[in-house]
């Protein structure tokens, strides 16, 4: 496997935007499937030892994926995603939100914009996350990193104040 695959991660706190770019050593159609088919998504979208369990997924505009990240102890964190735009093998957009087990979304969610392109057998995926709530991110991280309860929100505020003072 190639080790020189690009991975960029940028957080713009002021606009609450996260931009992620990652290359994958596989052809476009395969990577597209990995991001849009439930049986493949469930194999990688939860960081081990958590597992992803998709209850249903309907990859059409207006369709939804309702899934849980499940801890080894059986703790479930539900998420709901609604697909708002799909251009096959090029781009798709979705609204992402935490939810309870009865599919009630905790709004407002964040908007995820995925772009796919292939060059010489390497597929580049660019993800832009808009209106990401750092509180929400913290909730997610809290699940994965026990004892890590610091909020990005406070960091955001502090850094804003500190940068103004300089």
């Amino acid at each position, binding site marked *: *496997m190639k080790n020189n*695959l690009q*991975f960029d*991660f940028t*957080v713009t706190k002021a606009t609450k935007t996260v931009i*992620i770019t*990652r290359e*994958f*050593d*596989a052809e476009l159609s*395969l*990577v597209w*499937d*990995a991001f849009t088919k439930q049986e*493949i998504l469930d*194999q*990688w*979208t*939860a*960081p*081990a030892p958590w597992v992803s369990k998709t209850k249903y997924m309907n990859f059409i505009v207006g369709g939804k994926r309702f899934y849980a990240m499940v801890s080894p102890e059986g703790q479930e964190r539900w998420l709901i995603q609604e697909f708002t735009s799909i251009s096959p093998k090029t781009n798709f957009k979705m609204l992402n939100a935490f939810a309870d087990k009865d599919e009630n979304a905790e709004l407002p969610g964040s908007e995820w914009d995925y772009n796919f392109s292939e060059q010489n057998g390497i597929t580049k995926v660019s993800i832009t996350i808009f209106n990401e709530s750092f509180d929400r*991110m913290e909730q997610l*991280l809290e699940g*994965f*990193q026990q*004892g*890590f*309860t*610091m*909020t*990005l929100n*406070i*960091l955001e*505020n*502090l*850094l804003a*104040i*500190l940068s103004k003072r300089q």
Partner: protein
Amino acid sequence: METRRDAFQAIADPTRRAILLLIAAQSMTPNTIAEEFHTSRQAVSKHIQILTECELVKQEKKGREIYYHINGNKINEIDKWVEQFKKILETQFAQLDKVLLTLKKQKNEK
């Protein structure tokens, strides 16, 4: 094992986060900090002590008063927290790399 307060524990408390925000804007004395909260002066002192112990805030003596201000270097350390989010993504993508490798193999075998 030595038990030591770390910055993340310190910042997990909402009152301490509020104190940090307050003194990030301007350095303050313990009294002026306490006035901002509906808790006792002692409780606020305890919070300030914890923040000082883990070096998130620094003391400075001006005349007879002690002023507390934020320790910028330590705060930048917390920026590393962003790295944690990045690491989770890296984990997910590394998992995806493996999945893709398997899928490619399966495809070639067909």
